[in-house]
């Protein structure tokens, strides 16, 4: 389109639509992801569950070697026209050409304005669409035994696109039916970034699940130690209780926002996020009202009931925080903290030990934290090398994230796909959380 030439009416109308964005995040992206909580973004941006529905790829942080090929594939799976915005804390760091044509910005940009401009320029033709990064090569040609590719054994004759047909395996009724081998991740929207599950599915029932290696384990730097995270600071110095409890409440509410969006209750999720933004010490009413809505919602009351049950013996004394307390285990480091003892702290415990129970557990803990924050005054806690974080016990050594990941294969066996996703979400995993939780 030439200078001074106005784009057509269709292009201008298309540019006015909400920006459809598919977001992927790597390491060193905790601060960047807070940009997504801006209320202005909710008006302008739609975060899609699949790159097929999006025109803009929002890449956040750094991507370890094992995730780079997947990131490029995600880029190519975006609908045309497409554009990539890569937000990094250090814009000039070497990028190993993951996204050659991406627009690179640091974390101090106006994200809503930038996404809107990229979308407008893309759809009005000011900026061209990005070409695919990966080469246009089939995994393998469809070859059979004949000179023209025909013939061969099996239903298809030959090996279509280099991929074998599904193998057979006994299902629940003893019938030998087909079993699909599928690997989901590392950028599957409901899952934590970096989580890859190797599944064997019959229909939508999981017959076998394996967790791939954590791609962030090999990261040399631990960005969480550079962040202003209250719980990390509390490992080495006293931190006001009000600050830690408000951070805990916000963490649980942000988890709930994500969980509700996964369960298809997006509007309630946005409402939860708005509550988290306007949270004040002692103001419990908005959370209590949210609890009432969720209590009377048939969707929430039915989802996750009896699903994802963990045997308490497997997680006893492992410092798993809300997951353990939702299983009826009365474990919380704050019980032995003098500052919390003065406040009369008693841990919230639920006994059902399923996905729904973990939802109520975090919601009730958020309410408790807001109440504690109001009553704490100038009380401080921490400096002892161990602290009760929102996901469980935090120390400077040890890591119980592998414990939760190790529980997944048994937990997901026999579940339908929807229940499996709900179970993974209920565990509140973060594979980048290479700061530790103590393994006793």
């Amino acid at each position, binding site marked *: 389109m030439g200078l001074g030439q106005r784009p057509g009416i269709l292009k201008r109308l298309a540019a006015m639509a909400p920006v459809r964005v598919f977001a992927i995040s790597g390491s060193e992206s905790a601060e960047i992801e807070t940009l997504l909580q801006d209320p202005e973004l909710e008006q302008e941006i739609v975060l899609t569950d699949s790159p097929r529905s999006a025109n803009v790829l929002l890449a956040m942080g750094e991507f370890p070697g094992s995730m780079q090929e*997947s990131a490029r594939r995600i880029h190519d*799976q975006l609908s045309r026209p497409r554009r990539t915005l890569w937000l990094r804390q250090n814009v000039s760091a070497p990028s190993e050409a993951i996204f050659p044509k991406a627009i690179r910005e640091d974390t101090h940009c106006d994200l809503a304005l930038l996404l809107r401009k990229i979308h407008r320029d893309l759809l009005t033709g000011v900026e061209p669409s990005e070409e695919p990064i990966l080469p246009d090569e089939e995994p393998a040609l469809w070859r059979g035994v004949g000179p023209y590719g025909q013939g061969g054994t099996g239903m298809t004759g030959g090996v279509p696109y280099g991929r074998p*047909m599904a193998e057979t395996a006994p299902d629940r009724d003893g019938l030998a039916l087909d079993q699909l081998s599928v690997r989901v991740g590392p950028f599957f929207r409901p899952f934590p970034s970096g989580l890859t599950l190797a599944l064997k599915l019959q229909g939508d029932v999981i017959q076998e699940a394996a967790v791939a290696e954590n791609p962030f384990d090999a990261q040399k730097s631990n960005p969480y130690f550079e962040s202003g995270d209250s719980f990390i600071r509390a490992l080495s110095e006293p931190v006001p209780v009000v600050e830690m409890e408000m951070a805990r409440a916000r963490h649980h509410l942000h988890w709930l926002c994500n969980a509700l969006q996964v369960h298809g209750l997006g509007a309630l999720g946005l409402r939860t996020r708005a509550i988290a933004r306007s949270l004040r010490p002692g103001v419990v009413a908005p959370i209590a009202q949210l609890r009432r809505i969720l209590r009377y919602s048939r969707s929430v009351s039915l989802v996750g009931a009896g699903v994802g049950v963990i045997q308490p013996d497997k997680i006893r004394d492992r410092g798993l925080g809300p997951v353990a307390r939702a299983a009826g285990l009365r474990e919380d480091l704050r019980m032995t903290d003098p500052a919390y003892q003065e406040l009369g702290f008693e841990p919230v415990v639920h006994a059902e030990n399923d996905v729904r129970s973990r939802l109520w557990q975090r919601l009730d803990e958020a309410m408790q934290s807001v109440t504690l924050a109001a009553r704490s005054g100038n009380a401080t806690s921490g400096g002892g090398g161990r602290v009760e974080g929102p996901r469980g016990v935090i120390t400077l050594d040890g890591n119980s994230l592998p414990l939760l990941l190790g529980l997944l294969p048994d937990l997901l066996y026999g579940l339908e796909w929807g229940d499996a996703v709900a179970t993974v979400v209920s565990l509140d995993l973060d594979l980048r959380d290479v700061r530790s939780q103590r393994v006793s």
Partner: protein
Amino acid sequence: MLTALGGSLIIAFVAGGLTLGLRSLGGLLTPPRTTAPERVPFLGGLGPETHAWSRFHVRYYAMALLFLAFDMEMVFMYPWAVVFLREGMKAMVEMLMFIVILTLGILYAWRERALRWA
């Protein structure tokens, strides 16, 4: 004066022309040819390992069989509906008895978990 044949031919040509026109329009609006990586189904960033052609148990076949059985119940209700007004309350009671017997069968199937396929 348009004959029936002429009218049919006009409709046939208009329908055929519309179809070809819409197909051509689709071809004009199609984006450029996609590459192999663009066509890979979305699985979170990884490619598929096997083909998606697979057979799986059609567990809801019990529902299909029950539907057939109750469809036959409806077949019995059609001639009944024709004579119902003439016969009056007697026909009403007889049909109610028929439906109640079949409903008891459905309740039995429900209790025996025949309606669960997950």
